[in-house]
């Protein structure tokens, strides 16, 4: 029997310690992860390969979130996008509710919450097909 295709995740986090941790957590859960440290690499990676989910960290002072997710959506609108956040959900709903962000994962999160996020994102991608 052929092995099922591994879920492929593109992770962008500028902070090395956090990026390495989330990458390890996702790998530990059995997903294939490509981790990048800047916006340019993230968009380039996303253009070059089909991913099942993009996770990025909002905690960047110079990041125009709306512009970034619009650029991702221009490349591929069917790939779910998740943002790692730190404040109350209502804040993000007001600010980005109508953007291309599909999921929010509020820090601090545990392994099980990360697993749930990927599961829901994969299900959404299936529905969007």
């Amino acid at each position, binding site marked *: 029997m052929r092995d099922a295709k591994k879920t492929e995740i593109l992770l962008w986090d500028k*902070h090395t*310690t*956090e990026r390495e*941790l*989330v990458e*390890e*957590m996702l790998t*530990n859960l059995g997903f294939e992860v490509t981790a990048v440290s800047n916006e340019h690499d993230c968009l380039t990676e996303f253009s070059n390969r089909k991913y099942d989910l993009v996770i990025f960290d909002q*905690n960047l002072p110079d990041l125009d979130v709306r512009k970034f997710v619009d650029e991702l959506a221009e490349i591929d609108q069917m790939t779910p996008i998740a943002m790692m956040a*730190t*404040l*109350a959900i209502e804040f993000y709903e007001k600010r980005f509710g109508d953007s291309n962000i599909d999921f929010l994962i*509020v*820090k*601090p*999160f*545990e*392994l099980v919450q990360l697993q749930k996020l990927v599961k829901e994102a994969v299900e959404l991608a299936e529905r969007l097909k």
Partner: protein
Amino acid sequence: MADEFETYGDRRKGKDRRSDTDRRSRRDRRSGAERRGIKDRRAGWGKVEEERLQGALTAAATVAHLFSQPLTIVIGHVDLLLSRAEDQTTRKKLEIIKEQLQSLSMTLQDLRSLRHYKTVDLDGLVLLDIGLRKVKKLD
């Protein structure tokens, strides 16, 4: 029975109440932070409450924002260690660490959910009410 405690402003002891150190002078009374000016009184308490809430919300959001990342890193590593640890003593200790981190995480969640300025008095310790009812009194 003789008084065991000396109290300030105790008229029974014939002291000059005006010289007591804990009494506020007229100037102090006027400048008391809790006293409102005519303008404030006209505006009502609503403005003061709103300012307090805004201050509390800003402080709460700052704490939640700054603590979230380090807490994510610590919880994540504890989770990874737990997924690999085989030794029962190590597992038990990691579970205790995780439990405490989850408690901190819930406090952050309470801070994020703050919508009203309300305080809670824990035996004289006045704190912002973010679900501190759950805090157990120390023996």
